[in-house]
Structures are given as structure tokens and as C-alpha cells.
């Protein structure tokens, strides 16, 4: 089973190729069939291959398998190798499982789009790339996956490229990610210089014996830059809200459930390196906490249903960074899994609403959809309660574990715990606000809108995800830490931080965070549901100024525009105008001219006369004989 692991990647890749060449010919609904089957097939295959990990008697070393495919570039020491361990299995199952549901959903959502086949081509290519990323056993292959998912993300954000805003958003995502990739690439070079290899097996096996704390800090901070770009953390998060220009299934799959968690995965994967550097871990946790809090405040004031969820994703990714920053890798990955499920559900629900409202995304023009869309309403409610941290839903268990881990670390990290708690309250508030604005109260939509429940092909994935949102949290409760045991072999030799085992402390922490969630929901209920229109206006009027700041996301885009983009453009124009045209072109033309002239000088050598060729041959022979004889004697 494991020996043929490449099948998992080959299936979606094959479907992507199929749709690339034949997608248009096979037509609308049928193009989706190979796409869905390939991803579902990859899920089944991965699940079967992961079967062994559930047998607890297996020694932990056996749970890590390296599948060697072929020597890729032997001279550079890069081998195409896949790593199959519990962490890779978890990521693969999330990517293919959630991916398959979103593929099914997309059949309904993309109905009638002229580039239906092309959409599934990109989506499948994304799945294959993401699987390369999570299954790679060396940094070179990781980087290949890393860049490919970036490419797919870019293609899918600007899928509706005729809209100028979509094209601009794609460009922004591309440019911001280049900054992160730059850090990542430098990190890879430093790793190669220090270890002489890019293989996980060698780099991550007791790296402390090869590099010191200083070098480890440098490597980890550079990796963190890359992770911050891909996972939309401070200060590189600005591309994700704009990425919502892409079709909603894309937002759910790439910009919520899978690709944006690549940074978290990478930090967890390189836990052995982060373990050498307290500074880098602290930086990751601090960045995560700041991002979580900042994005949560921005989400409070958004009007666009998808932008709320985008900032919420950034905020939740911040939680994951907090967890992996303090070496709470299982807590971070646990939240990654639950978040993938409930955030995908939230996005798909939002997509269902947008679908029903014929493209309307402004929550001010929704309301009262509860009765019109019962299934969407019910599943969204479950997901909202889950992300708000209400027990016993998935989000409660995973968020609670992160907060407990932070609290257990103590010291400075207690401050971060406080930030996390405040974020939890804000999260509950803005999610409840969204719920009440969309589903509660009276209908505020205009004339002509006829909201209706989405077709079954869209609601069935919602229901499946809804059930998962209820159940998946139970894989790792303080009563039974199955997920943690499952992952243990992947963190052999890595100092893992666990949640405290003191029952009283745990209960107290859980109560506090649940209380934060309840308070947040209560405030939202009072302001957005209970209060009359006038009272609400009056209440919000009092906090107009901060709300304005939040609505505009602290004007970060404007600040970046003024501070970075504008001078950058000026610099670019200068380089294009002066440096490139005058200096570089001058140099190139100069060299080219010189080379041509040299070539021209040499042409008389080639007169076409046999006698001169013969003379050249003889002279060459004499010269060589003289040279060799002189060297050898």
C-alpha cells in the first residue's frame, strides 16, 4: 500500500490532465466526474495506507516510512521521496477528504460557468500540488509543492479574470507570497549550506549536533517568513481578504481549509529545528497572537460575508501559530483539522447564501434567511457555535487545548493566553453577529431577490461537514487523547508541549474560555438581534471611530500602498527606465556587439579552401604535440 503512495498524487494529477485536454469536450456535469472520483479515490487510498497507524502495538519507528520514487537531481542531492508518517497521513486525509466534499459542492456552485472544466482542472492540480507539499521528504520537493499551490491559488483567485478586482487580487496574492517565498528560499540555502542536504531524514534528525542555536534561530526565522506569507500572518496577511474574489469553493478549499495551513504544517514538520531556538518559537507564538487578535477586531466590523470569514481564517491561523510556537504541535494540528472542517463548512454555507442571493455578499442586505434556507441555516449555526468554542463542538476542544498549552507554558506566554482568550470572545461575537445579520431578524433584501435553498449537490456536502463538525472534536478530548497518541511517532525526538494534566486546572480553563464564547454570543445577540433598530444605531454610534478603523482593516492596505507599493513602483520605473534600458541593455548590447565582432574576426578562419583547413589542422596538431610534450617531459 505505502509503496505505491505516489498514486495519491497521480490520481488528481491525472484528472487535471484529463480535464485540461478534454474538459471542454466532455461538457459541464461530466467534467466533474473524474475530478471528484480522483480526489475521493486518493482519500480512500490514503485512509487504507494509514490503517497501520491505528494499530497501537506497532513500534513507533515503523510508523515512519520513506518511499523513494526516483533520483531526481542526483548532483544536488535532491531525491523524489515521500514521507508517510501520521502527520503526513492527517494532512493527506484533510486535503483529500475536505477536498472531495468541496469538489462535489462546486458542481452546483459553478453550474453554468463557461469555464467549468477549466475550474476543475485547476482544483485538481491544486490537490495534487498540496499533496506533494505534505508528502515531501525533503525541502526541495516541499518547495516544489509550495510554489505549485501558490500558482494554483493565483490561478483560482483570478479565475474570473475579466473582473478587474479579481485580476488585481490574484496579482496581490502573488506578489505578497513572493516576499514570503524569498525568506523561505534563503532558509533552504542556509539549511543546505549547514547540513549539505535537504532531506528531512538527515536535517531533522538531531539537528542540534550540526548547527548551533544562533544558526537555528536564523533558519527558523527565515522559515517563519515563508510560513507567514503562505499562512497569511502579520505582516503578510493582506492578500487573503482580497483572495475572496475567487469562487467560494476556492475560498473554502485553498484559503481556509488547506493551503493557508501549509505554514503551520511546515513549522510543525520542522519542529526539531524550532526546538533549538526559543527565540524563533517565541516569535512564531507572538506573531500568531498578534495576528489572531488584530484579525478578530477587523472581522468585527466587516459587512461582506466572505471578508468576515477571511479575517476569521487569519485569526484562527494565528491560534495555530501560537500553538506551534510553544511546541504544542499536536494542539496546533488538531486545531488545523477541526478548523479545516468547520471553516470549510462556513465558507460553503456562505457560498450557498451568496448563491441564493444571486451574488449578493453584503450582510446588510440579507437577514431572515432562516426559513428560506433551512439546511444552510442549520449547518451554519453548528459551525458558528463550533468556532465560537461552545462545547461539545469541534472548535471547543481544539481551541481549548491551544489555550491550555499556552497557559501551561506560563511566564510571558500567559500574556499570549490572555490575547487568545480575548480573541475567543471577539470570535464568538463576530460570528454570532454574522449569524444574526444573515439568518436572524427581518428580511432586508431588495425587490426581485428570491432566496431559495441550494440544490442537493450543495447541501449534502454541507450536511456531511456539519456532522463532522459535531463529531471530529472527540478524537482528542482531555478524557481520551487519541489524536495525540496517533501523532506521537511523527514527533519522536521533538520536545512536545502537552496540555496540563491537572483536572481542576483544565476544567477551570475550559470554563473560562467557554464563558468568553458565551459572553461574545450574548453581546452579539443583544446588539444585533434583541435591540431595536434605533437602539442599535445609538449603540454602534458610540463606538463609531474604532468600528471605522476596523472596517478598513486599520488602513493597512493604504499604509502599505503609501509606504511600500508607491516607492516600489517608483523604484521599478526608475530601474526600467534608467537601469535596464541604459545600464543593462547597454551592457548586454555592448557584450553582444563585442561577441559578434569577435565572431566576425574569426570568420576568415573558415575560408572554404581545403588547403587552409588542412593547414589549420596541421598547426593545431603541432601546437598540441608541443604542449603535451612540454607538460609531460
Amino acid at each position, binding site marked *: 500500500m505505502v509503496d505505491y503512495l505516489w498514486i495519491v498524487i497521480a490520481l488528481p494529477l491525472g484528472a487535471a490532465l484529463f480535464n485540461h485536454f478534454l474538459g471542454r469536450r466532455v461538457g459541464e456535469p461530466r467534467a466533474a466526474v473524474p475530478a471528484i472520483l480522483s480526489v475521493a479515490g486518493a482519500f480512500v487510498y490514503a485512509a487504507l495506507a494509514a490503517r497501520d497507524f491505528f494499530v497501537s502495538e506497532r513500534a513507533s519507528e515503523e510508523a515512519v516510512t520513506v518511499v523513494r520514487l*526516483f*533520483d531526481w537531481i542526483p*548532483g544536488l542531492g535532491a531525491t523524489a521521496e515521500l514521507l508517510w508518517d501520521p502527520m503526513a497521513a492527517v494532512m493527506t486525509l484533510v486535503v483529500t477528504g475536505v477536498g472531495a466534499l468541496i469538489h462535489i459542492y462546486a458542481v452546483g456552485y459553478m453550474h453554468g460557468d463557461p469555464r467549468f472544466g477549466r475550474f476543475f482542472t485547476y482544483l485538481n492540480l491544486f490537490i495534487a500540488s498540496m499533496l506533494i507539499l505534505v508528502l515531501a521528504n525533503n525541502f526541495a520537493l516541499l518547495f516544489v509543492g509550495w510554489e505549485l499551490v501558490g500558482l494554483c491559488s493565483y490561478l483560482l483567485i483570478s479565475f474570473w479574470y475579466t473582473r478587474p478586482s479579481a485580476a488585481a487580487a490574484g496579482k496581490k496574492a502573488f506578489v505578497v507570497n513572493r516576499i514570503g517565498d524569498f525568506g523561505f528560499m534563503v532558509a533552504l540555502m542556509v539549511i543546505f549550506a549547514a547540513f549539505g542536504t535537504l532531506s528531512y531524514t538527515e536535517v531533522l534528525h538531531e539537528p542540534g549536533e550540526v548547527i548551533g542555536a544562533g544558526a537555528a534561530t536564523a533558519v527558523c526565522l527565515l522559515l517563519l517568513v515563508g510560513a507567514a506569507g503562505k499562512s497569511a500572518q502579520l505582516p503578510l496577511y493582506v492578500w487573503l481578504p482580497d483572495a475572496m474574489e475567487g469562487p467560494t469553493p476556492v475560498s473554502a478549499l485553498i484559503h481556509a481549509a488547506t493551503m493557508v495551513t501549509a505554514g503551520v504544517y511546515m513549522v510543525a514538520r520542522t519542529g526539531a529545528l524550532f526546538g533549538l531556538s526559543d527565540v524563533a518559537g517565541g516569535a512564531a507564538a507572538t506573531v500568531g497572537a498578534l495576528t489572531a487578535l488584530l484579525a478578530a477586531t477587523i472581522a468585527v466590523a466587516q459587512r461582506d460575508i466572505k471578508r468576515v470569514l477571511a479575517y476569521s481564517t487569519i485569526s484562527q491561523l494565528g491560534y495555530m501559530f501560537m500553538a506551534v510556537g510553544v511546541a504544542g504541535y499536536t494542539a496546533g494540528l488538531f486545531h488545523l483539522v477541526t478548523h479545516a472542517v468547520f471553516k470549510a463548512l462556513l465558507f460553503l454555507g456562505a457560498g450557498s447564501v451568496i448563491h441564493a442571493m444571486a451574488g449578493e455578499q453584503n450582510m446588510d442586505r440579507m437577514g431572515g434567511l432562516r426559513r428560506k434556507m433551512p439546511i444552510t441555516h442549520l449547518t451554519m449555526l453548528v459551525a458558528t457555535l463550533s468556532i465560537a468554542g461552545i462545547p461539545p463542538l469541534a472548535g471547543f476542544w481544539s481551541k481549548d487545548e491551544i489555550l491550555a498549552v499556552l497557559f501551561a507554558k506560563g511566564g510571558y506566554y500567559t500574556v499570549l493566553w490572555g490575547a487568545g482568550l480575548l480573541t475567543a470572545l471577539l470570535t464568538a461575537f463576530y460570528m454570532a453577529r454574522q449569524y444574526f445579520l444573515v439568518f436572524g431578524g427581518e428580511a432586508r433584501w431588495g425587490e426581485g431577490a428570491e432566496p431559495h435553498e441550494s440544490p442537493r449537490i450543495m447541501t449534502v456536502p454541507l450536511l456531511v461537514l456539519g456532522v463532522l463538525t459535531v463529531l471530529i472534536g472527540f478524537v482528542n478530548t482531555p478524557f481520551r487523547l487519541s489524536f495525540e497518541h496517533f501523532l506521537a511517532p511523527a514527533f519522536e525526538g521533538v520536545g512536545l508541549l502537552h496540555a496540563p494534566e491537572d483536572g481542576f486546572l483544565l476544567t477551570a480553563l475550559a470554563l473560562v474560555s467557554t464563558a468568553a464564547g458565551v459572553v461574545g454570543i450574548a453581546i452579539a445577540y443583544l446588539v444585533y438581534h434583541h435591540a431595536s433598530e434605533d437602539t442599535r444605531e445609538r449603540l454602534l454610534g458610540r463606538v463609531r471611530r474604532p468600528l471605522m478603523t476596523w472596517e478598513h482593516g486599520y488602513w493597512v492596505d493604504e499604509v502599505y500602498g503609501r509606504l511600500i507599493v508607491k516607492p516600489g513602483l517608483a523604484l521599478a520605473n526608475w530601474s526600467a527606465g534608467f537601469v535596464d534600458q541604459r545600464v543593462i541593455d547597454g551592457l548586454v548590447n555592448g557584450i553582444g556587439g563585442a561577441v*559578434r565582432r569577435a565572431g566576425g574576426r574569426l570568420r576568415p578562419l573558415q575560408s572554404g579552401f581545403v588547403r587552409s583547413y588542412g593547414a589549420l589542422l596541421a598547426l593545431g596538431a603541432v601546437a*598540441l604535440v608541443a*604542449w*603535451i*610534450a612540454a607538460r*609531460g*617531459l
Partner: protein
Amino acid sequence: MIDVSYLSAAPEMMLVLGAVAVLMVDVFAKPPPRVHGWITAAAYLAAGASIVLQWQRLGAGGGGLSFGGALVLDPWAAAVRAVLLVVAVLGTLCAWEMLAGLGRRMAEGVSLVLVATAGFMLMGASVDLVMVFIALEIGSIALYVLAGIVRSSPAGDEAAMKYFLLGAFASAIFIYGGALAYAGTGATNLFDIERFLNDYLVARPAVILIGMALLVVGMGFKVTAAPFHSWAPDVYQGAPAGVVGFMAAAAKVGGFAALVHILFIGFARYQGAWSDGLAVIAALSVVLGTLLAIGQSDVRRMLAYSGVAHAGFLLTGMTAGAPAADGLLFYLATYSVMLVGAFAAVTAVSGPAGAGSSFDEYRGLGRRSPVAAAVLALTMIAMSGMPLTTGFIGKFQMFASAWDGGYEWLVIVGLAASVAAFFFYLRLVVLMYFRPGEENGRDPDAPLPLPVTIRWVLLFSAAVTLVFGIYPGPLLGLLTRV
């Protein structure tokens, strides 16, 4: 000691039998072209089967010297034969239209291709200087005739004449080198020479060294290393289009195969002297080949000079001695396939028997024949050494060998030349895709007819170049057994 293992010469025998059969059948039956095709195919199949048997024998621990120590059956010899067989099959397909167009003289042409292949295969198996010379002449004389086989073409006559005269000159130098080596060591067998040089301290090695240098010159001529390259542009330009790819690739593979045996076995003791000499020739070939290629206005001449540069890259790797052997073979195999592919496209453009092919004829080829243009573009990109093609991997290995061998300066020269080489390789690509077709009377967008044989060569060449460029593992693995 006199051990005759027919298996160690079986592929050549099959090819020569095929050549004889073609001539005999032609004399008695005057058959249509396709009968010659069947016989040739049978000869290639039999030769291929013999090579497989040779591999099996080697795998079972067999092999070794035979025919009185003149031939060796070692992995190098078997692998060189396999490469040459591929080149010959592709070359025959590419030349088929030209050969079929010879009418009554078709059998001559076909048998010459078979004999030339047999000769160059023998070069890779010979470990006796006399045998190397005989093999060299078998292959070369067949090529001289092939260059001028189209009688109506004055350019072909000129090419054949030049190739013959200069080739005779180079052969004379080679055999003189062999004579001097014999004078110095008392042996023509390379293993005997090696033993002599190891056993005795030669007080005055001048005679041996001069002999060795002259042997290098003789082979340098065959592989178009500068300054022994001057025949190549004229011959490639004048010879009938269909046969040039075969001519260029087979001579290069055969020449390097023999040079490797001569230097790595016979004169291993003098590696210090010959690797310096090779380094100088390599640098000269790379620089001259690149500079001269830039100024060309004819695709075939450009390819000839690029071939000079590629001989330089191969010699760059050779400076490292025996460790470079498997890399050399990879380079030779993949470069030959690119070369035949490129000349297949040239054949499509200038007609099967045509001479010359100016750059202007390639304007707008992207529209006239998408397949030919795409493959030609791919081979140009591969020859320039871009990653994800076999060209990159081959060049990378050559540079790595030379670097490890202590010839850093040579690597730097090679890298600089590679950068400059983009200029002429990509110029052709730009012409094909971004310049409109010429407007002298004929429709610039008229589709170019692409015979099915040429199409196969093009597709095979592109597939090899791309697949093993992205995924070199299997081919490297196969060839590193050498």
C-alpha cells in the same frame, strides 16, 4: 589467448550481413524500396538482440578480450553500441526519403549507412590501435561516400571531397601517432601499452607522448574538436539533409568511444599530461564553437559550430578521467538524440536531399509546421542547457566532473560560453515563432509537408529530451553500470 567470441562482434556482423543482403537482393531482384526497409529493420533488430545478449553475458560476469585481444566486451562497448543503434535507426528513418529518392542506387545508400554504423560500433569495442584505425576507416569512408551520394548536387560533391581529403589527412596523423606509440612501448594493444607504462619507468617519454598527442588529434578531428573542426560546417551544409544528423552523431559517438578507451586504458599513466591537453582543446572548442555559431546565417553551419562547442563540453568532462565515463555516455546518448531530432527538422525544411538551410527559411515555421518547429525549439533549448531537459543534466555532470578534477577555470569558461550560446540557440526559436514568413512568391503560411518517418524521429527525440530531462533516474541508472 586467441579466443574468438563471436558474441563480442555480433552486432557488427548483423549489420554487415544486412548490408550485404541489401546489395545482393538488389542485384538479383531489383525490389521496391520497402524491401530494403524490411531487410534494414531486420538487421537493426538482430543487432539490438545481439546487444541484449551482450548485456546478459556481462551481467553473468562474462565478457573480456577476444579476437586476439583486438576487441573487448565490456559495459562501455555494449552501451556505446546501444547508443549508436538508436542513432542509426533514427538516422535511417530521417534519411529514408533521401535514400528512396536515389532510385537504382538506393541499395548503395542503405548499405553504406549500415556499414558506417558497424564501423563506429567497432570503434567503441576496439582496444588495439590497429583495430581502432580499421574501425575508424570503415565508418569514415562510408560517411565520405554518403556525403556525396546525391550526384546531382554540386554542394554534396564539394562536401564529400573536403570531408575525404581532410579525413585522410587526420587518419594519417592518427596512424602516425599509433606508430610512434608502438615505437615507444612496443605494443599496439591498449592493455599492453598500459602494462608497459606501469611496469617500466620510461626515461624519455617524448616519443610516447607525441604519439599520444597525435592519436588525440586524429580523434579530435572525428569529434569536431577545435582546432580540428574546420571540415564540419562545410560538410554539414553541403551533404544531403537527411543524412547529416546521422553523420554528425555517429562520428561523435564513435570518436569519443575510442578516445575513452585510448586515454583511460592505454595512457592512464599519463593522465596528468593528456588531461591538460584535453582541457586546452576543450576550452578552445567551447569558445570558438560558441563565437563562430553566433555569426552564422545558416542553420546547419550553426549546428556544426554548436557541435564543436558540445565536443568541448564533453572534453571538459573527460579531463577528470575514468570517473567521468558514465556522465560522458549520458551526454553522448542524449546529445545524439537531440542532434538527430534537430536535423530531422532541418530535413523537413530543406527537403530530403537539399543542401544548405538559411535562417530565412525558418521564419514563421511555428505556423507552417507546429510539430517540426516545436521539436526544433525544444532541441535548441536543450542544447543550450536549460533545466528540465537532458541538455542540462548532461552539461551539469560534465561541469561537476571537471570541477572535481580540479579544472575550475574550465568550468567557468564553459559556463560563460553557455550563457553566450543562448544568443544563437534562442535566435532560431524567435525566428520560428515571432517573425513572419518570408514573402518571396510563396504563401508564408503554407503548411510544410512532414513525412511520417521524420515525424517519428521528431517525436522520439522530443520525448527522450523531455522525459529524461525531468526524470533522468532510469537512464542514468542504466548507463552508470558502465
